[in-house]
């Protein structure tokens, strides 16, 4: 499956949702924690990314009863998980290549 390389905020959001379904505030806090405070998303950036991911069917809203609209949770779809796996494999390959190149240069 060929997809465009993901931007860091989108990758972090997907990684956050890969673990468990989360609502907006929880995603923001998890992304901040995962990146040790390096990536801090604004609400505008988060919901822009969520809208695109919903449109592309990478994530879906979790059907919950007795939950206010503000606490709406999202989860990865099958397609989103596949694309995330593809992106992680791409990054693995890139990291391996980078290690080899750096090691070759140092030797």
């Amino acid at each position: 499956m060929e997809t465009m390389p993901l931007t860091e905020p989108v990758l972090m959001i997907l990684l956050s949702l890969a673990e468990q379904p989360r609502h907006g505030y929880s995603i923001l806090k998890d992304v901040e924690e995962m990146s040790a405070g390096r990536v801090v998303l604004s609400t505008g950036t988060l919901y822009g990314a969520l809208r695109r991911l919903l449109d592309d069917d990478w994530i879906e809203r979790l059907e919950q009863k007795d939950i206010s609209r503000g606490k709406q949770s999202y989860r990865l779809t099958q397609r989103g998980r596949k694309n995330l796996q593809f992106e992680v494999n791409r990054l693995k390959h890139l990291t391996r290549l980078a290690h080899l190149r750096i090691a070759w240069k140092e030797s």
Partner: protein
Amino acid sequence: MLTIYRRLLWLYPKTYRREFQEEMAEVLGQLHADSSKTCLLARFRFYVRESAGLIAGALRETWHQSVMRRFTVGNNFRFPKATWILMTLILAGVISAIRKGEAISVSLPHDNPAIGPIHPANTVMSGWVMSVLIMYAVGLVVGGVFFLVRRTKLGQMSGEN
């Protein structure tokens, strides 16, 4: 500050607001409550980040809704029969013109005496007029096709609603 955020949310397109405004307002409220416990510098950075994020997000969504969605054709879109007929007529016209040109070239004797370049009167003016007329005709045909496509698309959308 929350009032300013709520006002900034109004910059977003209506459909987007209907879907996300409530959620965004709640998240902004929670983040604002968190930021009130931090130092002045951190709070200032939070205000700037959120305000810039909301403005940039609103611009992005407005662009997306006004431009991108206009050119996005749904998977179930089909050209109307009138478009197929129009396109077939245009194709038939082009093929017929090519055939006619070939027939004229065959009918001309091969041993024509060499003649110099022909300079008709008002070459520049008639050339321009012809170009404008051709472009106008092409524009009419293309416009007609787009009109039919748009009308069908709108019809389908209203049918879906």
